[in-house]
Every structure is written in C-alpha cells, then in structure tokens.
C-alpha cells in the first residue's frame, strides 16, 4: 500500500476545494427540484408527498429518497427555513445555495468510502490499477458536471452502488450487497436497469449451489427473500397501506414522455433520428414517402412528440423488448460463470443495453455505464480499448447540459484534463492481455478521440460565429450523434471482450 499516491483522501480534499469554488456556478432546474422536495418532505405529512403539485417539479423519486430529503431538511431548517416553504418557488438565497451544494459534497463521502473499500478489497496485484480506477471515478467529470454544477445527488447514489458491488466480492457479504442494492432501488429507480444482473448473480451465486443449479440453498434464498421484502416493505409499505401505490407509480414512471429526451442521449435512437433527418433530404430521390408533419418536430426536440419523417415509428414496447434482449445475452454468461468480474461486466452491459435502447433515456444515465465499467476497465488492455471511446463519448455527451459561457472552460478543460490524465495513466497500468487484441478497435478509438477536438470546437465556438442563433439544434445533433457512435462502438467492443474472455 505504500505506493498508492495520491491517496483517495488527498484527492477528495483537493476535489472538495474545487467543488466549493463552484458554489456560484450555473445550476439547472434540478436545483429547484431538490429544493422543492426538501420543502415537501419537511412541511407536509407523508400521505401528501406524492400528491403535492404546487410546483411543476413534483416528487418523482422513490420513498427512500424522499426520506433522504427529509433528513437533509432537518439541517436546512437551521440554515434558512425559507427554503422549506412549498410555495416559495425558485427560492435561491445564498444560504440555500450553500446548503444544497454542500449537501451534495457531504453525501458524496459515501462514494469516497466505497472507493476506498473497492481498493482495499482488490487483490494485491491489482491494487495499483484499482487505485487509479477509483481516483478516476472520484474525479469523474461526469459527476462534477452533473452533481456539482448542474445539481443532483449522483455521487451519493453511485457511492451506494459501488459499495454494493464491492460487497458482492466476498461470499460472506453477498447478502448485504443484495439488500443494499434493494435499498438503492428505493432511492432512485433508474437502477432498475441494472437489476437483472443482480438478480442473476444473486440467484446463481447465492441461492444455488456452486456445483449444480439443482442444488438450491434454501437458507440463503429465504434470507435474501425476506430481506428484500423487508426493504421494499419499509419503503412502499406505508403507501400500500394508504392505497397510494397507483399515484406513486404514475409519478415514478411517467410513460407519457417521448422516445428521446430534450437533448438526445447518445444512443441508438439518436443515430436513428439522425438517419431520419438525413433521409428527409435523401428520401425524395429514393422515392420514399416523407411525413411532412414530422419534419419540424424532432429538431425542436420537445419532450413527448418525437416522430419520424421517413423511418418507422418506435414504440415503447419495441424499446422494452430490445433492451431486455440485449440484457439477457450477457446474463446467460453470468449465469454460467457467476464470478465477480463477470458480474461487473454484466452490470455494465445491462447499463449499456438500457442506455442504448431504452425509452426516454436521459444523457445523464451514461454514468450507469461508465461507473461500473471503470471498475474493470483496467483488467487488461482489451478492456481498456473498449473503455476509451466510452470515456470520451460519455463525457462529451454531457457538455450540452451546461450551456452558459462561464461554465464552458470548466466543463471542457476539466474533461480534457481528466481524459489526458487517466487515459495516459490507464495506458501504463493496464496489463497486456493474453489474447490478441482487436486491431481495428484500437485504430477506431484513436481516430474517434481525434475527431472529438474539432467537434467540440465547432459546437461551442464556430457554430455560433458562423450561424449565430439559427440552426441551434445542429451542435446538439452532432454532439449526440458523435457520442452515440462512440458509445455503440465501445459497446460492441466490450461485448466481444466480454464473451471472449
């Protein structure tokens, strides 16, 4: 352990200093969302939490997160009681800003601790790579942009996820890992996307015997079953008792939204939409019909009305089936080989599948792929080869989240700093694979990373200088299409690595 410098704690201190300096930075509506939740949970009885709608930003996270907000509101009361009034919309006194921003930093300590455990629990030969991977997550530009500027509590939530993944490493703590994940689901339901991997892993590795799948460990199954029921009971039980479940579910799963989010997340549907846009100009020459109503809708990117001019419409059911299909494929391997490394790979691939094929995916969900992948990216050089384009694409795709001039240098320079630092460090730390690497993939990722530089320049500076305020959708479309290529490319690359190792 003597050689692991800088330590996680040292990085956390310096990162915290930077994050505190970012207090006055731009904050999105998510800041008001969370302030509103503080107010709701603090000033209303629990029965009203999921019915309150004074603000348009209603409570749409599961009950544990509401409890988390309630706990925070106990401190908020001391800082500035004005922020806890439900009708006090858009309230952002400096006390409120300082309090909410510091609460993000303070709860992120969970992530720091989880990463520490991750390094501790990794085998001696992998300590150095694991340490580098842990630092890359701690200093992730994704978390910086989303949590500390845009405003959310992902550091805390992903901290719990990593904690749970680390617990899955040892047989003795597998049960705790499963229960912690259940609790995480009750904090934010986006992690349902990863649940299939957990299900298969716990089933095969914990409830069934190592030799034969017909050897059921009833004791373990009972412990896990009752534990999970207890966790969910604690979260949803009261609402079942009050008969509020339909209302709660309608808040958690707003299916009325469209296929693509306002900014296209860089997934298959972004490529699909891009192709459709291109086809609008090409289709007449090919003799294809163009739906004129749709021509102006996608570009505006308004939530809920994505429709295609040339290509067939995509329904929620289709996305669901595709997601499940691409999740099941890696899960078969996990079922046959329930080791920790395969488990993390399967979690990553579940994240990929849901991000790439899901309905109304938010670009922030890319963390669902990047963070688990980081844990095994340094396993050998082939993993790293698949990770590289993801690291570039995933973070570049977050740039449109921040569009103010003052934050532009922070998001770009910080991301470049992180990419240079960690891609160079990873390159030195990742051991060579004992299988030959895929030549094409390496060249692809180099070319891909090179393209990002003119792209960022165009989207952030050149476009405005050339076009002014018109064609505002173009930089967004380019960014998400570019990133989509990277994410899909890294997904294909990782699938190959996953199944051949």
């Amino acid at each position, binding site marked *: 352990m003597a*050689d692991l410098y800088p330590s996680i704690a040292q990085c956390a201190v310096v990162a915290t200093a930077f994050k505190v300096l970012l207090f006055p930075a731009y904050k999105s509506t998510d800041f008001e969302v969370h302030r509103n939740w503080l107010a709701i949970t603090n000033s209303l009885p629990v029965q009203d939490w999921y019915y309150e709608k004074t603000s348009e930003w209603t409570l749409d996270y599961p009950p544990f997160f509401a409890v988390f907000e309630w706990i925070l509101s106990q401190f908020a009361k001391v800082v500035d009681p004005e922020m806890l009034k439900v009708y006090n919309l858009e309230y952002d006194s400096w006390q409120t800003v300082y309090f909410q921003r510091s609460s993000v930093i303070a709860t992120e300590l969970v992530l720091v601790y989880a990463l520490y455990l991750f390094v501790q629990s990794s085998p001696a030969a992998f300590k150095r790579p694991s340490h580098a991977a842990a630092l890359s997550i701690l200093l992730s530009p994704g978390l910086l942009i989303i949590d500390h500027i845009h405003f959310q509590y992902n550091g805390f939530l992903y901290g719990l996820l990593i904690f749970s993944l680390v617990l899955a490493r040892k047989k003795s703590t597998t049960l705790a890992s499963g229960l912690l994940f259940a609790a995480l689901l009750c904090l934010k339901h986006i992690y349902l996307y990863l649940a299939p991997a957990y299900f298969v892993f716990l089933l095969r590795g914990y409830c069934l015997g190592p030799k034969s799948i017909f050897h059921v460990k009833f004791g373990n199954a009972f412990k896990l079953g009752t534990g999970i029921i207890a966790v969910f009971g604690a979260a949803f039980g009261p609402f079942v008792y009050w008969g509020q479940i339909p209302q709660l579910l309608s808040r958690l799963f707003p299916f009325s939204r469209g296929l693509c989010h306002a900014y296209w997340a860089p997934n298959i549907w972004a490529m699909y939409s891009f192709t459709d846009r291109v086809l609008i100009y090409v289709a007449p020459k090919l003799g294809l019909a163009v739906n004129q109503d749709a021509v102006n809708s996608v570009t505006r990117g308004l939530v809920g009305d994505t429709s295609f001019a040339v290509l067939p419409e995509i329904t929620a059911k289709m996305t669901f089936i595709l997601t499940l299909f691409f999740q099941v494929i890696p899960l078969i391997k996990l079922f046959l080989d329930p080791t920790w490394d395969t488990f993390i790979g399967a979690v990553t691939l579940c994240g990929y599948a849901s991000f790439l094929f899901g309905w109304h995916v938010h670009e922030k969900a890319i963390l669902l792929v990047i963070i688990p992948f980081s844990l095994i990216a340094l396993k050998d050089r082939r993993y790293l080869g698949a990770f590289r384009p993801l690291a570039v694409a995933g973070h570049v795709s977050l740039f449109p989240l921040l569009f103010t001039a003052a934050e532009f240098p*922070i998001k770009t320079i910080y991301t470049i700093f992180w990419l*240079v630092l960690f891609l160079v460090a990873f390159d030195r730390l990742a051991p*060579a694979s004992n299988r030959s690497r895929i030549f094409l993939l390496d060249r692809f990722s180099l070319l891909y990373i090179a393209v990002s530089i003119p792209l960022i320049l165009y989207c952030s500076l050149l476009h405005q200088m050339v076009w002014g305020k018109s064609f505002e959708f173009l930089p967004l479309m380019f960014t998400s299409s570019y990133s989509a290529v990277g994410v899909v490319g890294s997904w294909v690359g990782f699938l190959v690595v996953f199944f051949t190792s």
Partner: protein
Amino acid sequence: MVGPSPHRPRRKAKKTTTGNGSEVSSVAPSASSRSSSSSSSAKPAYPLAAFLWPARSSVSKWEILPLILMAVGLFRWAAGLWGYSGFQNPPMHGDYEAQRHWMEITTKLPISQWYFHDLEWWGLDYPPLTAYHSWLLGTIGGLIDPSWFALHTSRGLEDPTLKVFMRATVIVSEYLIYVPAAVILVRRLSKHHGVNTWNAAVALTAILMQPGTILIDHVHFQYNTVMLGLVLASMSSVLAGRFMWSCVFFVLALGFKQMALYYAPAMFAYLLGVCFFPRINVPRFLGIAAVTLATFAILLLPIFLGALYDAHRGVDVRPELFGHPAPLPIFSEHSFKINYSAWYFPIIQQAAQIVHRVFPFARGLFEDKVANFWCALNVIIKLRNYPSELLQQASLLLTLAAITPGCFVIFIRPRKENLPLALATTAWGFFLFSFQVHEKSVLLPLMPMTAVLAGNHGLSKNVRAWVGFANLLAVWTMFPLLQRVDLRIPYFVLSLLWAYLLGLPPTSFSVYHQDGNPSWSGFATTTLHLIFYIIMGIWHLAEAFLLPPHEKPDLWVVINVGVGTIGFGICYLWCLWNLVVGSGLVESSKSEKRKAKTQ
C-alpha cells in the same frame, strides 16, 4: 485469473537527473522495475508531492506540464465565478470598473486624451503599457459586444457575459506572460541548483497555486500577473545571462505598473554589480544603459507621437477647457517658462501628466489600512498631527535604510541565484516603509520569495515553512479587503488548499518536525510561526463571532495590520539573512545555514 504481466511502455523512459536539491529521497526507479518500486520506503512528505508522486519516474515534463497548467487554470477560472471588487456596489464600483473603464477610454478616445479624461471616474493612473493592454483588450471585447465599452454609457456595467470576458482576459494575459515566465524561471533556477525535474514540477505547481495572486487577480480583479510575469521574465533572463533582455522585460514591467519600482533598486544594484565584479565591464554597462533607455523610449513613443498627431489635427487634450491653456500638473511654478504653442509642447504636457498620474505624491502617507510600518505606527502615534513633508522625508529615509543592505549585498556579490532573495528583500523594504502602499502590493515581495521554492533546498521543511508563512500571513492581511466584497469562501478555500498542498499549518504541522539533530534556530522558527498562526486563527474566530467595541469599530482591522506588520518585518529579516548567507559574506556551517533569524 490472468497473471498481471506488466505492460511494457512503447516509449523508452527518460532518466531523471537526480540532484542534491530533492527533499524527498526520490530514488528514481527505472521503468522496468515498476512493480518492485512499491517496495521502496520513500513516501511523499506533503500532499502536493503525493499528487505528483506517480510522475516521479519516467514521465517527461511535456506530459506533466500541460496537466499542471490545466489544473491551476481550472482553479483560477472556478475562483473567478465569484464576485469581483465593486460588484453591485455603486456609485464608484471598484477595480473591475477601473479596468473596464480604461478599455472604454483607450478604445473610444484619441490617444492624447487618455491620461486627461474625466479623472474623477477612475482616471487612467497606470503607465502606458497598461493603457496599450487595455486598448488591445477593449478592441477585442468591442468586436464581441460594442456596448461593453461604449463611451460614458457603459460605466458600472454588470453584464454577466462581460464578466466572463473580463475574467478570460486576466487568464489569457497570465497564461501568455506570467505562466511561461514562471515555467522558464523554475526550469532555469532548478537547473542552476541541480534540482531534479520532479522537484521543479512540485515547485512550479506551488508557485502557480499561490493563493495571493489568484485571489487578487482572478477574484478581486486586477492584472498584477502581467507585471509580475514581466519581472519573472526579467529574472529568468538574468539566470540565462541575458542582461539586455532582462532590462527590456524589467522596463516593460515598470511600464505596466509602477509598483515594479519596488524591485528596481535590487535589479539596478545587481546589473550594476555584474558590470563591476569580478572586473569592470564598460561595454556591458553601456549596453544595459542604452537598452534601458531605448525600451523606455519605445514604450512612450506611441503616446508622444499620438499627442503630436492629435495636436496637429486640432484635437484638444482637455476639450472641457475650450482651448484655454492649463498649467502643468507638476512643477506648476515653472509653467510660465514653457512656450504653450511650441511644437514640442504636447510631449511635455503628456509626460508631465503621466508622471503626475502615475506617481501621486500629493496623496497622504497611506490611504487604507495596510499592514505596513506607517499604518501600524499610526495606532500608537497619530501621524496626522505631523507635517506631511516630515513624514515623506522620514518615509524616504526609512525605506532607503531598509533597502540598502540588500542592494549592497547583491551589488558586491552579484550571484544570479541570489537575485530572487534580493528582490524580495527590497520589495519587503518598500512595502513596509514607503508611502502610498496598498495591501495588494504585498504580492510584490511574495513573488520572488515564493520563487525561492524552486531553488536549492527550496522544498525543504525550513524554506517551505518560511515561504508558506509569508504567503499565508499575506493573504490573511488581505482578508479585510476580500471580505468587504463577500469573498470569504474563496479566501478560505484557496489559502487552506495551498496550506494543505504544502503541508503547512493549520492543516499540518509536519514542517516543524525536526528530524536529526534539533537546532535552536529551528525551535525559534517553530515558536515564532506557531504564535502567528495561533493569532491568525483566533483573529478569524473573533472577527467572525465578536463585534468590536463601539469606540473602536476598526479594532479587528487594526490588530490585523499590527500583526501583519510584525510578521512581514520578520519575513524581511529572513530574506535579508538568507541573502547575506547565500552571498557567502558570512562564514556559516551547513547547520547554521538553516538559521532563520539574526537574533
């Protein structure tokens, strides 16, 4: 499980030059034994060393330098998100408005009016290079949004995009001047002392993360780093033996901000020294003199030519006088001797006005509360009761007394490695005893003193303790200035961060652990520093939670000034002592070399 066969890097690792200047015994492990290096017992002595730890071996400076520059740039920009001086503070606003206003007048008015225009509203009172710099920035900014620098109507403008532009101009100016100069200086200084590149990188980061410069330039708002950068360039030219270039850079620094005069005596003494010792070198002396004069001439030429041209086309420098001649601002009693209609009169008029604006002799001994001798003395003796003539003479005498020893030493022993300490000594002397000192001027003595980190034993506990002490004390004396514009949080974050990185109090007391044989000087340093740190800590608590008594509303600031003055006096003595020791004038054994204070 796959065995971790260590991946062999494609590029051959460079061998780092191990010098005697490294504090941590960094046994540079060769690239092939990377896995075995984990068994070495060396470990970083402070967090900044830990951050650069992975770069100890086989990382070229071209990999580490961009990362350092990006990281320090990020901290600068993030700090710039906070408010600037005068933000939402009408009617006069602050330094930010002054700088913006200069961009306005230099881009919108004929050059001959720059130093005359409406002096009540932030009239230009910096030397010409600042004016040209403002003109350049104002021209660029005017292309982006003409309303930012529109004449008269843009006063006190608080457009958030303008703020971004202004912040960017500070960063860009710094990255074009201060940062390259610092990089080159650190490289030359460390090469001169045989310090290895890894230690040089640590020193560079420490210098660039100095809380004082970030807080004043990037948060409070000014362009000090341009002047400081030019002085750094002048220093590194000296290290490279290019004396003419050092004159050029130094004159440019003077031409940007007259505060560079704090360094001038030491610079002059050094350059004079190299002309006299070891043997008299007349050509060098003449060259230096000629280059200095030529640079001054080129610097002033645009203003003078512009004034002649404006006079020729009938543009009046003071339109508000409707053509009536006004006496010169200085030597007014001799004004009658001057022919107001001579062709050369505009030049005399401009020169007199620049001197009058740049050197405000008419103002008092000190303006605000600043941690120098006069302001501290004022607490005990009311200086207002004395004639200002007498005070100015006393100030002149004391300043001369304070700078003479340092200048003398560097003159008779002109060793280039001692230049930073000589500059620091004279700058401390000026800061403590000259008149019209501003609290921000403490950046001047700090800059060369911090540069000592890149020198021999620069990162040793003793030097880190002293340089850290000076820096932390200096930002502490600037706290009243910063908290007036609600900059407490950036103040605490940046100064604590720097203290943390260098392992200094209040985050760590490891610099005061004496390994080996404890010495009396080490013990004295520790006691002295700890007393100051404790006072600073208590002061912060008192300032935050206690109201000063009614009859003494300025009590906290006065205490700050008093403590700061004593501390800076000690820093002055430390610099002077080390300068004397470094020049070899005093025979000293190695252990005494670390001796901090004369008494």
